[in-house]
């Protein structure tokens, strides 16, 4: 259960009111001076408020023997340095709050903590190249630079070459053939369905050979209906062309025909020859090809020619590689180094039974220092080395205690802690690897060595339970510790998987 708190905005407004946004009405001389300096070339960073609260988070965790809630806040101290503090309250009546068998739980009770984290995101980019790609993409879309937001994930994924390329499934020869057959029929043949010697269900090669045969015998395939209408001698001949065209669509003849409504129709403006070529696998329609070439020509800085043939003679990056692929190769993320220190003070109440089986409670304070050196790789894998030095207390393990029930021969058994807690010193070094494993599962591996206990432990959590924000905040964890030779597998919720916080 993690939620961004609206109080963040309120606190931010209260704490972070920057000097440059002070109202003029209450301006003191010093403030006026600051404002003036902020508008000159000589002053800038000094007018920043350095301490602000960008975020506050709340979370809750339910473990096998532990229920806790955490509130934490983060402070930006510089672009790469973040301070944080938080409070964790443990709420349960368990006598033993040790979570699972993990060696990693140093502060089982309520605690307060403060941390300082330095994290630097780095990217290596060819800025001029990015600008060139985006200028070309803007012009390809027919947009000016200032009207175009260039975003990698929205750039086209297909190159101009691919848009004009062969696609085996795109053959449309049969459909053109059906219309061609209607065109070469007389109205009588059309109505009776008389075969004209072309099988439009045949392969493309057979159809095209048949079409060439008909062309040799007088069928007009090199002129469009538009061309024929343009040279028609009088309205009657133009009407005949119109009705021939209507027949290609299976429509009956009409007495009056407005050919202007066909003006943008490829079937009207293209010859059969051109239509068959356009329908051949790999050839986009003439209009599509012209549109692609127009984009390419604009991206090249040329005035569109209206040509459907624009492939450059030699391989050319702009033509052969998509904008998105080119942009993706114009930069790369570098590893993100992480340094962190944290101090935690805890206070834990321990319930136990003494030697006389009387209930006792002791409260002890402890503290822990933790230092982390890590690297978040460009591929989003986190490697970290953690060192912890802790002074705390640990409850004795639970045992099953059976006692006679008064006035009966029966006994009642329950888990109980026998004996007071023991002071513990931990000096631990831990290796950590964490990454998203699939789209729906995240995983981590912790290998911990405790020098004081001369023990080691392994913990492997898998995150797959989603929280309200779509992130992972729970899953299943397996753990082992060598000193107690215990294995554990448990479900957990509340621990958010986030490589970037």
């Amino acid at each position, binding site marked *: 259960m993690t939620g961004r708190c609206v109080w963040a905005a309120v606190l931010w407004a209260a704490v*972070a009111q920057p000097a440059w946004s002070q109202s003029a009405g209450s301006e003191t001389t010093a403030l006026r001076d600051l404002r003036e300096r902020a508008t000159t070339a000589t002053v800038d960073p000094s007018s920043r408020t350095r301490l602000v609260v960008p975020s506050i988070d709340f979370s809750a965790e339910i473990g096998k023997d532990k229920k806790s809630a955490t509130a934490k806040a983060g402070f930006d101290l510089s672009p790469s340095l973040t301070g944080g503090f938080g409070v964790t309250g443990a709420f349960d009546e368990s006598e033993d709050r040790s979570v699972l068998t993990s060696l990693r739980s140093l502060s089982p009770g309520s605690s307060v903590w403060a941390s300082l984290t330095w994290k630097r995101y780095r990217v290596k980019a060819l800025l001029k190249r990015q600008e060139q790609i985006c200028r070309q993409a803007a012009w390809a879309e027919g947009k000016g630079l200032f009207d175009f937001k260039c975003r*990698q994930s929205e750039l086209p994924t297909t190159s101009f070459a691919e848009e004009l390329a062969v696609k085996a499934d795109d053959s449309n020869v049969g459909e053109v053939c059906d219309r061609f057959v209607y065109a070469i029929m007389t109205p009588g043949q059309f109505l009776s369905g008389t075969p004209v010697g072309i099988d439009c269900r045949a392969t493309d090669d057979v159809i095209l050979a048949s079409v060439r045969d008909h062309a040799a015998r007088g069928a007009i395939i090199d002129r469009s209906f538009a061309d024929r209408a343009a040279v028609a001698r009088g309205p009657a001949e133009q009407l005949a062309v119109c009705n021939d065209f209507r027949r290609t669509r299976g429509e009956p003849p009409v007495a009056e025909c407005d050919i202007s409504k066909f003006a943008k129709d490829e079937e009207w403006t293209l010859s059969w020859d051109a239509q068959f070529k356009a329908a051949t696998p790999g050839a986009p329609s003439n209009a599509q090809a012209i549109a692609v070439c127009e984009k390419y020509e604009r991206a090249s800085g040329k005035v569109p020619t209206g040509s459907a043939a624009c492939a450059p003679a030699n391989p050319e990056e702009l033509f052969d590689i998509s904008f998105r692929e080119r942009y993706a190769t114009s930069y790369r993320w570098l590893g993100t180094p992480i340094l962190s220190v944290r101090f935690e003070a805890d206070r834990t109440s321990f319930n136990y039974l003494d030697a006389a089986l009387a209930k006792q409670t002791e409260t002890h304070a402890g503290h822990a220092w933790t230092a982390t050196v890590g690297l978040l790789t460009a591929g989003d894998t986190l490697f970290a080395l953690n060192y912890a030095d802790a002074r705390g207390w640990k409850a004795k393990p639970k045992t099953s205690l059976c006692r006679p029930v008064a006035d009966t021969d029966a006994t009642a058994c329950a888990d109980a802690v026998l004996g007071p807690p023991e002071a513990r010193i931990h000096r631990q070094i831990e290796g950590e690897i964490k990454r998203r494993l699939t789209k729906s599962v995240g995983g981590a591996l912790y290998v911990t060595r405790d020098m004081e206990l001369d023990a080691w432990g392994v913990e492997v959590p898998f995150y797959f339970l989603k929280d309200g924000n779509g992130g992972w905040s729970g899953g299943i964890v397996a753990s082992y510790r060598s000193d107690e030779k215990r294995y554990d597998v448990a479900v957990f919720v509340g621990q958010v998987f986030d490589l970037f916080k």
Partner: protein
Amino acid sequence: MDGREVTVPVCEFSKSGALRVVIVDESELSFVAGKARRNCKSGHYAVHWFARGNPGDAFGMTITKPASAESEVKGTLDETGKDAGLFWIKVKS
């Protein structure tokens, strides 16, 4: 130095979410609590941005000053958890 003070427009930027790096005029902006500002003389600037985070994380950036350069970018990271882009602004004194 003749003692004159030259007024230079200040560009103010704010960013949020998974936006990690913003480069203007080939220098990286230093954001503190999601805010950054820099002096920018009149002219055209390319603003390069780089976002990285968990899939589904939102990110955004706005330029609030000067008025001539006001603009906004926002989005959500896809399953790759990464995105980048750029846009141009005009600064008029």
